[in-house]
Structure formats: C-alpha cells, structure tokens
C-alpha cells in the first residue's frame, strides 16, 4: 500500500534516521512540530507549498523510489523528480518506439485510446440520464462521433474527433451540475469554478498515471495519441484520457452536487478562478477515496482498486507493443 502525501504548508523536508522528516514553517519563520513520514510506505509526494530541501534528500528519495511532483502557486503542474528507472528493458523500449514510428501501428493504439475515453464519457452520461437528467442530445452526439473513429486515417484527424467528443461532453456538465455553470472549457487560466476543478483534477489524474507507468517497463515519453514532445511524459497524457471521465469528472459531479465544495472554496479575484486551500484539500481527500475504491474485475475475478486499474492498463499497453496480446482499452462495465 503506497501512499501519496500532499505537502501544502511551507517547510523543510529532510532525511532523518533513514526516514523523512517534515518541519512546517509559518510566515514568521517559526518552526512547527516535526512530522515523520514512514518512508517505506511513501509512494509519491505532491508539493504545493514552498519546500526547503537538499540534494541528500533527493538521493535518498531516489533510492527509495519516491517520485516528487511540483506545482506552482496557481496549482499548475511544473514538473517531477523522477527517480532512476528501475525496470529497464531494452526490448520493451525498442518495441514501444517501433509502434510509435509505424503510422498504422500507432493509429491502432491511438484509436483504441480515443474509443475507450469516449465509451467512459458515455458511461457517465448514461448514468446521469438514468438519474433524470436530459442528456439524450449529448449521448447521441458522442455516439455519432464515436462511429467515425475507425475511419480516420491520420493522428491530427483523430485528435480532431477527440476534441469534438470532448466539446459535446462538456456541454452536458451544465445539465448534470445543479448549482454551478461551466459554459465551455477554459484553461490557462480557468474562468469559473467547474473549469478550475477540471484543471486540478486532470492534473491529479495525469500524475497518477505517470506514477503507475513508472512501475512498469514502459517509457513514459513515447506516446501514441499525443505527440511525444520534449520535457513531458506524454504517455501519461494518453492513459489519462481513459480515466479522466471515471475518476476526475465523477468526483467533481459528486463534490459539487452534494455541496461538499461551495463557492466559498474558490478564489475568483484577478480575472481567474482557482481553488482555495480548503477546497484543494477537499478535492484531494475525495480523489484519494476514489483511487482506493474497488470494483470486481471480470477477467481477474477479484476486487481491484481504481489505482491498480491504471497499472493494469499500462500492462495491457506493454503486452500490445510486445505483440503478446492486442490492446483493448478499459471500458467501465457497470
């Protein structure tokens, strides 16, 4: 059971007695009570506050295979400390790259990813449809767009369809949410509460995928749907597509409709809307709950948490590129 720790308070994190010691520091530079984090159970750290550390700590974290993700004041993802790969496999790397380089092979995977994402979005919409929201129009729209996925013949076209699906999907948000309005996706900066939540949630999903990829032999920089760029782990973006509807969007709907998050949890000064600290904590708590939730896996015949589901998805991609088993995206069956 590896845990994620979220550091909001500014402070100093250091290596002490072969484990991690966090000392919070307040505005006046006064040190608070130290808290020891059990390093054996730490999987990753999310750093939101300003953190004071030294290289000795990173050497230790690298050895313990703890990754650290950093976020700036506006909770944008700025980067990760990614410990040395410990599951290197040359053959996997070569196979993965070859699948990227061959347009047909690449499209085979990319199409499956978009198809899986669309399916899971539909699953969300149908759930709320059965709960008395009128989403007929959106369901029809996405189903129609989904049918054109197999006939695309290049990646930009596929990305276009993916964009269209998302556009239709986001119009459903205003109907699903009781008290909030979304009115279209806006980012950098998000213009309203719902957009702020989506941005923050997607970022959590992205880092969760990256963390699971780390525990497989896949290379996180070689992706299929998104173009592998520099300075980013685009394979995590690919995988996040599939899980965003189930993990992020459902959590957001729940938090807003049950009034766990309210307008006072947001800060709307300065021509943008971001989550206040209390709001962030509520979202993270719900997110952690969601990752721990289990479902009965049909093929494996046992209970599997959502977090583990992401890892299984990585294994499926790995098997596909090694030509062991064709990739079929994860589709929520409940």
């Amino acid at each position, binding site marked *: 059971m590896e845990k*994620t720790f*979220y550091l*909001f308070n500014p402070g100093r994190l250091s290596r002490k007695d*072969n484990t991690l010691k966090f000392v919070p520091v307040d505005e006046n530079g006064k040190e608070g009570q130290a808290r020891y984090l*059990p390093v054996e*159970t730490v999987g990753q750290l999310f750093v939101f506050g300003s953190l004071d550390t030294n290289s000795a700590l990173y050497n230790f974290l690298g050895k313990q295979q703890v990754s650290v993700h950093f976020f700036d004041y506006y909770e944008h993802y700025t980067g990760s400390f990614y410990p040395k790969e410990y599951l290197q496999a040359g053959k996997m790397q070569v196979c993965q790259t070859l699948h990227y380089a061959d347009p047909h092979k690449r499209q085979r995977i990319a199409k499956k990813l978009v198809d899986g994402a669309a399916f899971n979005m539909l699953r969300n919409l149908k759930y709320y449809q059965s709960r008395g929201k009128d989403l007929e129009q959106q369901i029809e729209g996405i189903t129609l767009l989904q049918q054109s996925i197999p006939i695309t013949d290049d990646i930009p076209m596929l990305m276009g369809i993916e964009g269209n699906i998302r556009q239709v999907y986001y119009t459903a948000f205003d109907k699903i949410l009781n008290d909030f309005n979304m009115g279209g996706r806006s980012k950098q900066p998000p213009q309203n509460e719902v957009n702020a939540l989506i941005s923050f949630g997607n970022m959590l999903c992205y880092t969760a995928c990256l963390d699971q990829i780390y525990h497989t032999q896949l290379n996180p920089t070689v992706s299929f749907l998104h173009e592998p760029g520099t300075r980013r782990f685009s394979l995590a973006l690919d995988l996040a597509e599939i899980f965003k509807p189930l993990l992020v969007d459902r959590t957001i709907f729940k938090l807003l409709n049950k009034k766990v998050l309210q307008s006072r949890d947001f800060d709307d000064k300065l021509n943008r809307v971001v989550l206040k600290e209390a709001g962030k904590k509520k979202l*993270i708590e719900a997110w952690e709950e969601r990752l721990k939730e289990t479902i009965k896996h049909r093929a494996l015949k046992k209970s599997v948490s959502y977090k583990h589901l992401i890892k299984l998805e990585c294994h499926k991609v790995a098997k596909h590129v090694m030509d062991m088993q064709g990739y079929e995206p994860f589709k929520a069956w409940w």
Partner: protein
Amino acid sequence: MYIILVYDVGQKRVGKMLKLCRRYLSWIQNSVLEGELTEVQLKQLKAEAKDLMEKEDSLIIFSSRNERWLDKEVIGEEKSSTGQIL
C-alpha cells in the same frame, strides 16, 4: 493490513526502536505507532526489530484487516495526526 504497534524496550534501545518504527509507521504517541503495511513490510519490520531487541524487551503488534474495522477515539490532546495532507 492496518497495524498498531506498541513497544516497551530497555532505555538504551528506545531511540533505536523509535527510529526503526518511524520508517514504516506513523508515530502517534510515545512508544505507539500506527499505519497501513503490506505483509512483506510487516515481516521486514519484525525481522529488524528482533535484531535489536534483548531479553527483557517487548513489542506488541495489533493488526486488523483494514482501517475500516478500527474505531479510534482520542481523549485529550492528539499528539500527531496520521493524515496524508500536511
């Protein structure tokens, strides 16, 4: 597995035991720690603790399948939380 660990060891080994346990569990009170561990991690912890202990020392581990089956009530001051948000 959710673990509550209590130790009572000779004065010379108290510090060592605390340092060892803090690598695996969250400290909640003097000589008391708790947290979620896998079976392998628990075995490692036990093995390392055994190396350290001498004949009059004692270490008690309470375990439960999941944190869900555990009611915890704090009376008076909570010395340290075990949450994931700092």
